């Protein structure tokens, strides 16, 4: 036999064309497509990674990442007040919380620098295959967005590995021999995905800004100048944002989405990790205070253990059941702390989790101006 034919026949089976698991697929697609690129025409390619579920429910699972308060997979028992409630007293309370946050946010010092720098931690929760415990996978992400046009945008990603979630999970993991590689259930897939408990090598990369000047996605691609010049009046801000609203979700033009959840999704980024002025951040809170469909949940703890208050909206998804999208903020400063997805009605891909589970989160550790960027 020809040596090439023999070699072909000797290919290890795992290097064949088995399909990639859904979580890896979603994570890789979102990682790639969240990067900016030179655009020939209008397209939304500068969107943040957060919530970038690409093509519907099957891939949504991995993109948003999960969180808990470190020792429990359950969201803290919330003291909930509903904006939609017909009792005006409750409605005022939730609204007041957001208006207070608006005032605090508007009075934070404004800064500037060569780069807008953010550091965040993403967490995803998984049920372990063939065992009764859960693990949390973590990834640290860092970004540098240039203030000036024409430069490069930098980003780095460092996978930190998966760990058992609760003390009981830890015990179950030890009982299993403390495996360094943990198979986890990826719903809808016959084979488990393998997570590593140890950190892996990170990547740092950079790329030119889209069109040379677009820095973020805010319903549409926007420049630093657009961001810095957003209206600080809530009604004007809402009108400005809604000019990009076309009746469908931020992820797919085939998924209808009402204006309120759309505004909520877009504003989360604006509040939490975009370089807008303190006045605009305040206006965004006031805009949220006027949405009838948002809830305010007090005394929540983000995945880094920080106390905060959440403003939340429920989303009825395709394939993920009912999910609550939360923005956690610090009431004292109006500073955004985290974005979380909470399972409300588990279906399909979320069926491994109890209602109330924060199954993925992105916690912002730093967001501010700096004059330095990565050296390599």
């Amino acid at each position, binding site marked *: 036999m020809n040596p090439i034919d023999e*070699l072909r026949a*000797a290919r290890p089976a795992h290097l064949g064309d088995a399909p990639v698991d859904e979580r890896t697929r979603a994570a*890789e697609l979102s990682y*790639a497509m969240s990067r900016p690129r030179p655009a020939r025409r209008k397209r939304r390619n500068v969107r943040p990674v957060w919530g970038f579920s690409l093509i519907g429910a099957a891939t949504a699972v991995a993109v948003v990442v999960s969180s808990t308060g470190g020792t429990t997979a359950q969201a803290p028992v919330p003291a909930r007040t509903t904006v939609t409630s017909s009792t005006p007293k409750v409605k005022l309370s939730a609204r007041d919380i957001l208006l207070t946050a608006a005032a605090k946010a508007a009075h934070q010092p404004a800064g500037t620098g060569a780069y807008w720098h953010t550091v965040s931690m993403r967490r995803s929760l998984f049920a372990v295959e063939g065992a009764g415990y859960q693990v949390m996978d973590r990834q640290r992400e860092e970004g540098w967005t240039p203030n000036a046009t024409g430069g490069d945008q930098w980003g780095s990603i460092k*996978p930190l590995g998966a760990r058992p979630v609760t003390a009981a999970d830890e015990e179950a993991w030890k009982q299993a021999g403390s495996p360094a590689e943990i198979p986890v259930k990826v719903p809808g897939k016959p084979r488990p995905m393998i997570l590593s408990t140890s950190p892996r090598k990170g*990547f740092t990369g950079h790329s030119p800004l889209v069109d040379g000047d677009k820095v973020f996605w805010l319903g549409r691609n926007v420049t630093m100048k657009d961001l810095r010049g957003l209206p600080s009046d809530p009604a004007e801000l809402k009108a400005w944002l809604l000019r990009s609203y076309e009746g469908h979700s931020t992820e797919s033009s085939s998924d209808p989405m009402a204006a309120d959840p759309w505004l909520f999704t877009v504003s989360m980024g604006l509040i939490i990790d975009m370089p807008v002025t303190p006045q605009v951040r305040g206006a965004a809170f006031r805009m949220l205070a006027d949405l009838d469909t948002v809830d305010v949940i007090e005394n929540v703890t983000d995945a880094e253990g920080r106390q905060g208050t959440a403003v939340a909206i429920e989303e009825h998804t395709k394939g993920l059941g009912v999910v609550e999208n939360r923005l956690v903020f610090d009431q004292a400063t109006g500073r955004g702390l985290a974005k979380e997805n909470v399972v409300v009605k588990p279906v399909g891909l979320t069926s491994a989790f109890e209602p109330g589970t924060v199954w993925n989160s992105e916690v912002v550790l730093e967001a501010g101006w700096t004059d330095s960027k990565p050296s390599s």
Partner: protein
Amino acid sequence: MTDDSHRFTSMYDECRQRVWAYVVSRAGRQVADEVVSETFAVAWRRLDDVPEPALPWLLGVARNVLRDNIRAEIRREALNGELRAWTEGDVADQVTERLGVLRALAELPEDDREVLLLIAWQGLSPKDAAHVIGCSSAAFRVRLHRARKRLKQAMEPAGQPRPRVPNLSEEWS
């Protein structure tokens, strides 16, 4: 979803596992996902430049990402582990000949292995494989010819005297 994201996801679904297999065969499984991820990030950024079919182009990008991000000695070490796993693991369902071929492959210089696997495992034409490596088709054919010869020698049953590696003039004689 835009046309571009549709095109990109289709390309990803078509080629992802083959890019992964290429990276594993060059640097082991440990780093494969990161390299693949970075490769498709480049592909998205440069989508307008990606030719059809995309696979050779993607493999070329993956090759550069490997070179730029994973130090050569780490790559070698990771790959040695991978090759050991291929030839030592799962012995029960391994056919002897198959093992022999993989062991022979493991003995070859890295450059030979790359050339052979682009043809045998990736199913590329010599022209496309030359594109991945960044050399001319003629130069690639020379490298392939030499690599094939060395593979054949390495596959000779153990114990038999091995002819020395031929030099270029012998190959063309």
